[in-house]
């Protein structure tokens, strides 16, 4: 009799468990229910949780869930303290890295195999308990190290002389935790604010061989995202001991500049380096209000030959003595910058 009771109890308990699991399933569908091609991530026919037979990671074939999320949602900093014992927690500048990844392998460079839906943290798949890989997956500790050091040991010139755990790990007890700036011979501090200013190139134009490219002005004023121009970059392309020489041609610039008509050559080509374009030189101060607008707001149809008319937007305007009149056009500001 007693035995039977225990048996019933067990069944009841199991039922509660199952119904609980079902309720959960209804809320978050398992990714196998989405129209996905299993073979892009799994190598076997019937992957299970224990034996997921995942492809070697990171595997970048599938532009998965991360492509549906934007940089704006990316958390600024992530503190990794799950495994800290010898060292203090690592502060990972997630958003900066995400912005850089946007120019290369995108979010998938870390969030590989992310099924549709929420972006998953490394620890949701990689095992934190043991340092032995489970299946084809590195342990959590190794996953972090493989992803980070794969790049960090390559451009950090001092790594060649010293193993620098302290680039990311502050020794326990030492304060404050701060991500050390990477030392690089070309860019002392690689930050968004310190993007390279000006590049000059030599072209085969005999009369005016020097082409000046004001990179800084383009990056801060004319395009809102680095990836508009930079795609398929690797970390070392910018951070490496030798910055990648980029091929530049008329095609590079023609999406915005007229490279066909002969009168326009002088815009880029000259006999010496050209100064950067300045609105000031044309009698207009690009103040903080105006700098927020996209070029085409004032330069209708992106026609930069014609001087924009204040009256296109303002009720009346007597330059430069008086205040502008009432705005007659409501203008949307540039989307918040990706930073």
């Amino acid at each position, binding site marked *: 009799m007693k035995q039977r009771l225990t048996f019933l109890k067990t069944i009841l308990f199991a039922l509660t468990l199952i119904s609980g699991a079902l309720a959960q399933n209804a809320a978050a569908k398992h990714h196998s229910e989405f129209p996905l091609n299993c073979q892009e991530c799994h*190598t076997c026919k019937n992957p299970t949780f224990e034996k997921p037979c995942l*492809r*070697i990671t990171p*595997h970048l074939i599938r532009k998965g869930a991360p492509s549906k999320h934007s940089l704006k949602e990316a958390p600024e900093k992530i503190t990794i303290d799950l495994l800290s014992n010898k060292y203090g927690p690592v502060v990972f500048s997630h958003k900066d890295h995400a912005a850089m990844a946007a120019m290369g392998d995108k979010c998938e460079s870390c969030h590989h195999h992310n099924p549709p839906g929420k972006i998953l943290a490394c620890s949701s798949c990689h095992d934190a308990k043991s*340092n*032995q*890989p489970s299946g*084809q997956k*590195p*342990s959590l*500790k*190794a996953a972090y*190290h*493989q992803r980070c*050091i*794969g790049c960090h*040991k*390559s*451009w950090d010139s001092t*790594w*060649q*002389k*010293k*193993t*620098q*755990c302290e680039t990311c790990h502050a020794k326990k007890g030492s304060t404050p935790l701060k991500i050390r700036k990477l030392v690089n011979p070309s860019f002392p501090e690689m930050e968004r604010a310190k993007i390279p200013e000006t590049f000059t190139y030599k072209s085969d134009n005999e009369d005016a061989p020097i082409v000046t490219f004001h990179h800084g002005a383009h990056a801060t004023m004319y395009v809102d995202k680095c990836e508009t121009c930079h795609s398929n970059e690797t970390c*070392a392309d910018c951070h*490496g*001991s030798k910055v990648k020489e980029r091929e530049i041609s008329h095609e590079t610039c023609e999406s915005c500049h007229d490279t066909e008509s002969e009168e326009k050559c002088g815009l880029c080509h000259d006999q010496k380096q050209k100064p950067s374009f300045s609105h000031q030189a044309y009698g207009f101060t690009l103040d903080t209000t105006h700098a927020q607008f996209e070029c085409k707001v004032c330069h209708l149809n992106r026609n930069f030959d014609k001087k924009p008319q204040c009256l296109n937007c303002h009720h009346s305007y007597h330059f430069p003595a008086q205040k502008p009149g009432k705005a007659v056009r409501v203008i949307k500001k540039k989307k918040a910058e990706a930073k």
Partner: protein
Amino acid sequence: MNTQSRREFLKTAGLLGAGIAGIKPKEAAASPVNIVSDDRMGVLVDSTVCIGCRQCEIACKEEHGLPVGSLDDYMDRTLLAEMRRPDTTALTVINEYPNPKNPDQHTDLKVQCMHCDHPACVSACIVGAFSKQENGAVIWDESRCIGCRYCMVACPFQVPAFEFDKALEPKIMKCDLCYDNRTSKGKLPACVEACPQNALIFGKRYELLQLAHQKIQDRPQSYFDHIYGEHEVGGTSWLYLSNQDFASLDFPDVGTEPMPGATEPLQHALFKFFIPPVALYGLLGGIMWLGKGNKAEEEE
């Protein structure tokens, strides 16, 4: 000295040895322990993810009670420029080579005993101090060793090291796959556990081979299409993946046939049955002389 005459000598010596012990040669053919189990374990070294942090060296020394020294010294990478071999102070070492795929990086490589499936050290050891265990480990038994150092000569990877500086009971030192305290009890080898990169993966040898082949297949741009240790000297428990030809990483071209120990026909009788010390030393003298001839021949 030609092979024929050496073999003749060995035969005679073998008969003599057996004769001394008062048995027929056939009965003397009891093998030392050398098991090649299907489930034997191994370690896959993926040198493309190894960063040369030397945490494995530290862990190995701690595990084997060898002096570790200052941890900061292990951060100094300038030392890696020189090629090192495992010795009595370090059973495993990291060496560094240029990386042909990325001039900004290096290729780092862990070196230790390969734990051969048909170990020449086991064959060479005349007293059976060396043995291949069921889990793949090739280990050395201090109580049996007579210090003849044949294992050092026989090993195609020059792994066993001898404590020349110790007058009393010098030991043969080599990686033992952490057999005593770890792998025989189902635990990870110390170096594997310490590796922050999972550059070392401990597992069943056949599964590691599957994984290694899959890695090469999935990322042909990252790997040189060869698994060192899959067939070398008849297969080894430690397996290596690399981004370049193994010849440029100082891996010897050892062929795919197991290396026989020069003393093989003798050892069984010697190890299995008690032999009067005088006869033993007489034999050893002869064998050493042979070993010498063998070496000279190789160098020719």
